[in-house]
């Protein structure tokens, strides 16, 4: 497990340094420098006051990174000697999980390996639906997908492990298999903080479902039509009506599907759980079809035109039956749910710190914060991960405590023990219309409805600074470009930003560049 030592936000130290005063000084006499890269080479470039961990902390970090690296190396050598070993080390099947021997820490370790594992044809990479497998395809063929990648880490490494993707890593969804212009382009988002996000979404969905149930009960009991303003965690989702028989009228529902399930994953918010988006990603990017999906195809619950028409034991016709079974998906989900959350790290420099503070205020004043909610409150940090194979519904869920299990930093309690957890994600987990300029070529279907081309989930902004380029298709190289591309419901905020002074715009940009992630030492 990758841990964090030392304080996360050394705001006090930053302020102290900033208050220490500013003045000009001549360049110091040449210090003893050694090679191109030894200490000293950065003098005059970097702020020497930048917070660098203590020597003790550095040694700990180095030892930890080295150990992880050695484990990886050993696995790779075992696999070189006997191909297949690596894959075995990166998987736990449902039977193994049912033994109860594996806690969150073990699932983290194995999931971490699986995340980095390069799938090969012998592991079920790709499909044989129209030509010999794996049939790599950079532009996806309809909903069938690619495959366009070998590993999760191929597209989620920018800014650190489990990070975002660059423009070259954009996915070309729902295309004709060849023309980039035929496809719906998506930039890979960072995966930090998915656990708290799913837990939040579940809470919000539960609240909305409760409101719906209460409304139906009220209408049927009173024998008269009734309505309720849907609101949860301070976010409004329009109005729900019910007639005297309890039949629902969802035309007033906004920002969420009519089934009132919050789907926080995907640029348009089309998947409700880490497990669902992971299974989708395995399938469309690597051609790894889950056993649960194969069973559903065989039972007529899923479309063979999308999942493959090869039947229950090899839906995607690549000669492999078990590509990713429930235990593996549970492991991957448990791993992702335990990842760290991004942080806010204000600048060390005094003037930049002042800009940062003003930028934070402007973020509210300009209207950004009305959708990019700085934080939402999570009451229950326990996230259940359940198998989705129809025959495994009775298995006990794996419980992940998203506030404690896995990588630090984690979401923290607002005030004292017993209070809610603050999830500083800068999103309302609600969909908004972003106008025609940002609209995607295609609408996206969810279990609960259709997300229109111009509609997107409010993108969480945490970790923003290390996830450029921005927007769903990575068209914006800078935050400034991204802000100016906002339209639709965000047009007033964009106009306010455009009308702001150069200084104010610089302040807002500075604030946004403080939304980053913990600086973690690793050995690539």
């Amino acid at each position, binding site marked *: *497990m990758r841990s964090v030592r030392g304080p996360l936000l050394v705001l006090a130290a930053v302020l102290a340094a900033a208050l220490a005063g500013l003045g000009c*000084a001549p*360049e110091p006499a040449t210090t003893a420098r050694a090679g191109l890269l030894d200490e000293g080479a950065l003098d005059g470039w970097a*702020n*020497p006051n930048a917070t660098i961990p203590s020597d003790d902390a550095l040694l700990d970090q180095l030892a930890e990174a080295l150990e992880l690296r050695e484990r990886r190396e050993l696995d790779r050598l075992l696999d070189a000697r006997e191909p297949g070993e690596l894959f075995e080390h990166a998987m736990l099947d449902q039977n193994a999980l049912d033994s109860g021997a594996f806690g969150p820490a073990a699932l983290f370790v194995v999931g971490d390996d699986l995340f980095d594992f390069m799938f090969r044809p012998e592991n079920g990479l790709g499909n044989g639906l129209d030509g010999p497998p794996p049939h790599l395809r950079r532009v996806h063929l309809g909903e069938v997908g690619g495959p366009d990648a070998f590993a999760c880490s191929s597209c989620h490494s920018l800014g650190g492990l489990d990070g975002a993707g660059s423009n*070259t890593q954009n996915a070309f969804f729902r295309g004709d298999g060849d023309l*980039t212009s035929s496809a719906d382009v998506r930039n890979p988002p960072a995966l930090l903080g998915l656990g708290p996000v799913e837990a939040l979404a579940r809470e919000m969905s539960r609240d909305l479902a409760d409101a719906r149930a209460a409304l139906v009960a009220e209408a049927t009991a009173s024998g008269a039509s009734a309505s309720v303003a849907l609101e949860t965690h301070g976010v409004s989702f329009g109005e729900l009506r019910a007639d005297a028989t309890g039949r629902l009228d969802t035309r007033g529902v906004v920002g969420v599907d009519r089934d009132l399930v919050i789907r926080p994953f995907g640029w348009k918010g089309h998947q409700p759980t880490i497990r669902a988006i992971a299974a989708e990603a395995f399938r469309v990017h690597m051609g790894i079809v889950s056993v649960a999906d194969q069973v559903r195809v065989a039972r007529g619950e899923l479309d063979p035109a999308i999942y493959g028409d090869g039947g229950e034991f090899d839906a995607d016709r690549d000669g492999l039956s078990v590509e990713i079974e429930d235990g593996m998906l549970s492991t991957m989900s448990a791993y992702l749910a335990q990842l760290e959350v991004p942080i806010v*790290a204000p600048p060390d*420099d005094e003037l930049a710190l002042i800009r940062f503070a003003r930028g934070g205020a402007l973020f509210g004043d300009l209207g950004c914060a009305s959708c990019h909610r700085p934080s939402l409150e999570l009451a229950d940090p326990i996230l259940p991960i359940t198998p989705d194979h129809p025959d495994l519904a009775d298995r006990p869920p794996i419980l992940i405590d998203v506030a404690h299990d896995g990588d630090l930093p984690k979401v923290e309690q607002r005030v004292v023990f017993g209070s809610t957890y603050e999830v500083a994600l800068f999103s309302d987990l609600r969909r908004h219309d972003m106008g025609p300029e940002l609209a995607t070529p295609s609408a996206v279907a969810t279990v609960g409805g259709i997300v229109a081309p111009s509609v997107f989930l409010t993108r969480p902004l945490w970790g923003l600074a290390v996830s450029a380029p921005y927007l769903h298709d990575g068209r914006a190289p800078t935050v400034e470009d991204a802000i100016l591309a906002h339209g639709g419901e965000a047009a007033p905020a964009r106009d306010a930003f455009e009308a702001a002074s150069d200084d104010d715009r610089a302040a807002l940009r500075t604030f946004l*560049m403080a939304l980053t992630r913990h600086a973690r030492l690793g050995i690539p």
Partner: protein
Amino acid sequence: VKARAALFVCVLCSACSEPPAPRVCPPVELVAPDPLSIDAAREAHRWAALRRELRFEEARAPGAVMRLTSARTEDPDACLSELYVAGRILFEHEASFADGLGNQLAPVGPRSPFRRVHEGRFGGPETNGCRSCHWRGGIAGGGGLVDDALLFGDGDAVSSADARNPPALSGVGVIERLAAEMSAELAVLRDDAIGQARGSGANVPRELEARGVRFGALVAHPDGSLDTSGVEGVDADLVVRPFGWKGTVATVREASQNALQIHMGLQTEELVDERAGDTELLGTGSASDPDRDGHARELTSRQLDALVLFLAAQAVPILRPHERVDGLERAADGLLAPLGHVYVDEWIAGRALFDDLGCASCHRPQLLLLDATFVSGGVTLDLATEAEHPRIRYDGASGGYPVFLFSDLRRHDLGDENASTHVDGGVPPRQWLTRPLWGLASSAPWLHDGSAPSLDLAIARHGGEAAESRAAFEALDFDQKGALRIFLMSLRRQWRPAVP
């Protein structure tokens, strides 16, 4: 400490009126610091802190990084270490429109300024920085399958383009020097043949060989002209071009400028001058701003010096048999502790098989470099004493610097199974430069299009001249194949801590 904090601010905002003291460059150290030392860990954090500082500075004043690196590299007395830092900053920089990213050639701008499939030789641009595609296995590493560049296309269809997997950039300075020395050897042979032909009045045939690598033969005519139809594996001009999957580029400088143009739309002043009039490559704008984005001299020659220095100074990969993995405890409750393994016997057997199977005939384990001085533009770097560790070392017995490159820097026919869509720089579809295998284990996936996620697949795709070796590998038994893979996995980069 207070003064140094202030200094940083002064340097960035040029608010300081006092001139800096004369610069004295440090002596070059000769003792290798351990890449896994606490100093290396501290430095990794300092780089992360610098990146953060620069992000804030860029947020304050867009274009700041380009201006800063331009200003700091203009100084003709800048130390190598300072140029190196500037080069690394540029390599890691995420470019913006303020820097000249992209172009404004289309009458109406596209919604996204990026274009994943290149249009002809002009390119995309498809990204905003070098790191976007050179990241796997550490800094200046290779790219994944998704990072493949789609070259020479129609701007839209993947099928119209040639997919090229971003190669790792380790040791490119050494490779450039090796190729230059081989080119010089070939030039001597050619010039000597011409001299003899002129003197004797008869045709003079000459076998071409450099560093033990054969490049066919040429015939010199008495009038000084050449018949190069027998030349093999290199262009008729006998210049060994070691960069690009097809071996079409001779220098790090040229490769960098080309990459900046086609992948980012960043035009160096040198490229704009040297290739003036090449509208297919540069665009149809004005002489000073061919890509019509309102930015001329998007990178100065000194910035390019810095970038090239950073790349040329990259460490060379290592060749290290696996020695120990004992003492590792179980990673978490429920998991087994890894068993200790020593693969030295397999490694020795694999190394022998590499020769026996014929792999080594193209993937030459070693080439000898005679002069370690790397010169490009205004920078000079001694690759043996000033580059990053690990670096090449002088060997008295051989009288030069052994380079464990695992390539002959020559082109070979790899068969129809590898044929490219386009002729690239005059190189036919089936021909490819022997890919250096050093650093192999750190740069998966493999092959020119990154289509091989395993060594077996990569070997299985070898055709043409390599077909016999492929067949020989396939005929091996389980243990022998394992041994060869163990050997190949020992070609890797030195581990080095990094803070992304």
